[in-house]
């Protein structure tokens, strides 16, 4: 083997892992946001809360436009007609029994939705992650057999519900396979694990995720997207108080 051949092989071996790190943490997070944010989307789904009393199933329908407008309407019997509207930083609830609008701000955003392990913030958060967090690439790790970037997000301000987030992002499809949400001191609050994915056009998106509140015992929440359509025409008036109280 000539010296030149050896040199080329050594260089190739050194450079082999580089493609995995060819992207910066910011670029990876931008790709995650890009692939999970559609011009518009309409989906139906299920939230299953499992606790010591058994399982409670709630169904919902959701519409979204860009990264800052979303509307969720619950369709299951016990909570039929309850809605959550987010327009930019403004979050409103609507209770049909009282025909009442309630604006949620501050700590109230961390309250549980329908007694699940998901908060209002979790359900409706904006997807411009880098506006709110600094990202750092910690390395790579396999999750359920998928190679993932391990990324730590640190909140830029104290108003974020989760000061620290650890994300495991699939190196191929840029779906978040696992996430752990923690306090500033590193105390773990919640864990999200991706259970299944689905194809939407050319993109792979999360279909079923399991969220566990690590501070509670014997409970977890599974959220599943049953059907989703993307990039259809949705009027801006859909994301308004008029439609919320319709």
């Amino acid at each position, binding site marked *: 083997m000539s010296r030149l051949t050896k040199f080329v092989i050594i260089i190739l071996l050194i450079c082999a892992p580089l493609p995995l790190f060819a992207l910066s943490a910011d670029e990876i997070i931008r790709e995650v946001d890009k692939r999970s944010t559609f011009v518009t989307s309409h989906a139906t789904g299920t939230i299953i809360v499992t*606790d010591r009393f058994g399982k409670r199933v709630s169904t919902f329908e959701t519409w979204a436009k860009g990264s800052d407008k979303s509307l969720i309407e619950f369709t299951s*019997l016990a909570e039929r*007609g309850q809605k959550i509207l987010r327009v930019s930083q403004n979050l409103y609830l609507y209770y049909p029994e009282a*025909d009442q609008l309630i604006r949620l701000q501050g700590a109230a955003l961390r*309250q549980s939705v329908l007694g699940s392990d998901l908060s209002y913030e979790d359900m409706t958060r904006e997807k411009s992650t880098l506006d709110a967090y600094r990202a750092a690439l910690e390395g790579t790790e396999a999750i359920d057999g998928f190679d993932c970037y391990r990324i730590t997000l640190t909140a830029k301000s104290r108003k974020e519900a989760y000061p620290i987030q650890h994300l495991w992002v699939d190196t191929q499809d840029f779906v978040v396979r696992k996430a752990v949400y923690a306090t500033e001191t590193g105390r773990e609050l919640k864990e999200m694990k991706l259970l299944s994915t689905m194809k939407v056009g050319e993109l792979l998106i999360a279909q079923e995720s399991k969220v566990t509140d690590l501070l509670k015992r014997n409970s977890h929440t599974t959220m599943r997207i049953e059907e989703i359509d993307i990039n259809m025409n949705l009027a801006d*008036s859909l994301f308004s108080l*008029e439609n919320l109280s*319709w």
Partner: protein
Amino acid sequence: MVRRRTLLLGIFILLVASALNASAAVTGELTFDQRFEFKTDGHASTTFVPDIGLTASSSSTKTIRGEISLGVGYAESAWNLKVRRAYLRARLPYGRMTVGKAPLPWGNGLIFNVANLTGRDPLWLTSYYLPFGALSFGEIVYLPAFETATAKAGARLYLSLGPFTVEGGYLALLDRWDGHRAALSVQGHMGVDWWAAAAVPISAWDETAFSGGLFYSHAFLRGGTLSLRPEAQADLKGAYNLALQALYTPDLNTSFSFLTTYISETETLLIQGGGSLSLPEALVLTADIKLSFTQWAYTALALELGCSWRF
């Protein structure tokens, strides 16, 4: 007169029912409350209150929707049928219109809310709602003298101004000037949610009333949430009411509540504590104990046990 009113009501309900298409969602709620009361004068009583409600509402179409909610309750040795809601709502080229019996909640505040000029119960009304952008709107309302002695008319403006919500309302009795009232309510967030409101009778400024409150929710690290809601109401004549509500939800199914209310005019203090347990299949069990004191002397104790099921 009563017959004519009943006929009109029947026609309207049929109209709403015909607007509900075949895919209308029908839900029901069955509630049983058993109340035991013991008074210091030696009088003891038990009351059993069954109640059933049926609601049919059309699925959310883009231009028209309707809802009918009828309830049958047992009170004072008789079953009573009540129209809880019956309304049609239609989108117009600009704004939307509601005709029928519907809730009309104005202002903020769970216990005291002087800006709610129309009361808490659903009312017979005709209203026109005009949105201004996504998060603001105006509303004009006419309340006929259908179940009330006097017809009323009013308007409100709801504005989302950055972190604040500002709501102004005006309600007039149509047959006399002294029943006109104006109200202003503001809501915001500074560490805790807060709101404040003032209601002014136009012909009697000295009866101006104020209400306000705070809301704070704390999620414990080991799970569970504690919500605190102090509220107050006062008027220029010196009367005041105070209330503190605390709600603790240790897990997804259980909640414990505590409410204490003081009414200065009657020097009455009410203390209420209870709990509720939500079970699968939308079944909820509740238990409450209520203690009443007047002029700092204990006057009554009541225990209420309840069960409700939504189907």
